[in-house]
């Protein structure tokens, strides 16, 4: 079984006091992780509440119940939305070669948000994987 990061969640340039939303359908900016080699598994996301700058300033980060989707690779079944804040059990269809997890989110800069680059680490945990 493999858990392969494809791309991170990128909010790009944001302005103080202007929330920035990335949806799971935003192919250019959403986070994406591929899971292969398991037919069923439990998915848990560890999501930080803030992004952090080099100077330690915090930029609030939040995830709504529909900010995550799972798509079956090589299968025409439509993506299924799920709450990224709750562990989920999935069973991959037989004809699918794996699954892609897409994750969006919202960055909410404060009106006095110090300028600069912010980042955070999102952890995807797969457990109970079976064949």
């Amino acid at each position, binding site marked *: *079984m*493999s*858990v*392969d*990061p*494809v*791309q*991170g*969640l*990128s*909010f*790009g*340039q*944001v*302005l*103080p006091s202007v929330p*920035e939303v990335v949806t799971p359908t935003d192919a250019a900016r959403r*986070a*994406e*992780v591929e899971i292969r*080699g*398991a037919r069923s598994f439990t998915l848990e996301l560890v999501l*930080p509440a803030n*992004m952090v*700058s*080099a100077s330690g*300033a915090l*930029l609030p*980060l939040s995830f709504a119940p529909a900010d995550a989707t799972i798509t079956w690779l090589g299968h025409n079944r439509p993506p299924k939305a799920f709450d990224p804040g709750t562990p989920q059990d999935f069973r991959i269809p037989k004809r699918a070669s794996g699954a892609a997890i897409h*994750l969006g*989110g919202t*960055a909410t*800069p*404060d*009106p*006095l*948000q*110090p*300028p*600069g*680059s*912010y*980042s*955070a*680490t*999102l*952890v*995807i*945990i*797969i*457990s*109970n*994987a*079976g*064949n």
Partner: protein
Amino acid sequence: MEDSCKRMNNSDLWDCSSRGTPRAKGCVASSADRTVLRREIQRCSSPWELIKKMKKLALFTLALCVAPQLAHAQSGSGVVDATATVLSVLTVTEIADLDFGNVTPGSPVTVAPGGGGALGALQIDHNADFNVSVTPPVTLTGPSPGGLPVDFLCGYSAISSTGGLLAAATDCTALPTRSGPGDGSTGTTFLQVGGSILGPSSLGILPGVYSGTMTFTVTSTF
């Protein structure tokens, strides 16, 4: 009791080994022995004993079912980053041009940053650190073919376009990084531009208006 029940079955009716007789096919127990054996078989076939046997069978079956799952159960993890760049506030507004005024040939003229006078000035509103770069002209252009040589000096003021400097004036190409407020709020810094024209530099210069342009590039740093 359990052991005896485990071994007991109908074939024991015809098995004489338990009585010390060599096991052999066709061995027939006595009538009395068979009666004892039948009772034992009945006891061992009671519901409680059957339940015990079924429990053991169930546990064994469960173990067989679970074992492959445990052998193949896996876990793993991956990480991705979330990133954002909060843009800085940075506006640059021209306040005044530097004016040396009338220059008497042979007499030096100085307009000193921080000292008032006809300083050139830019107002820079910013909420982050910034750097300034400029390539000042060596001469002001005018009637004389070689122009009017000039040296420029610059400095930052937090007060006004002509007020006191935060540090001593310096060559305009060597301005230090100016710090932002640090708390996300927007502050104002005035960049004052002065300079000097040495006395000998103006000797033999044709009268007229001399001018030049300085383009300052202000860049936010994080």
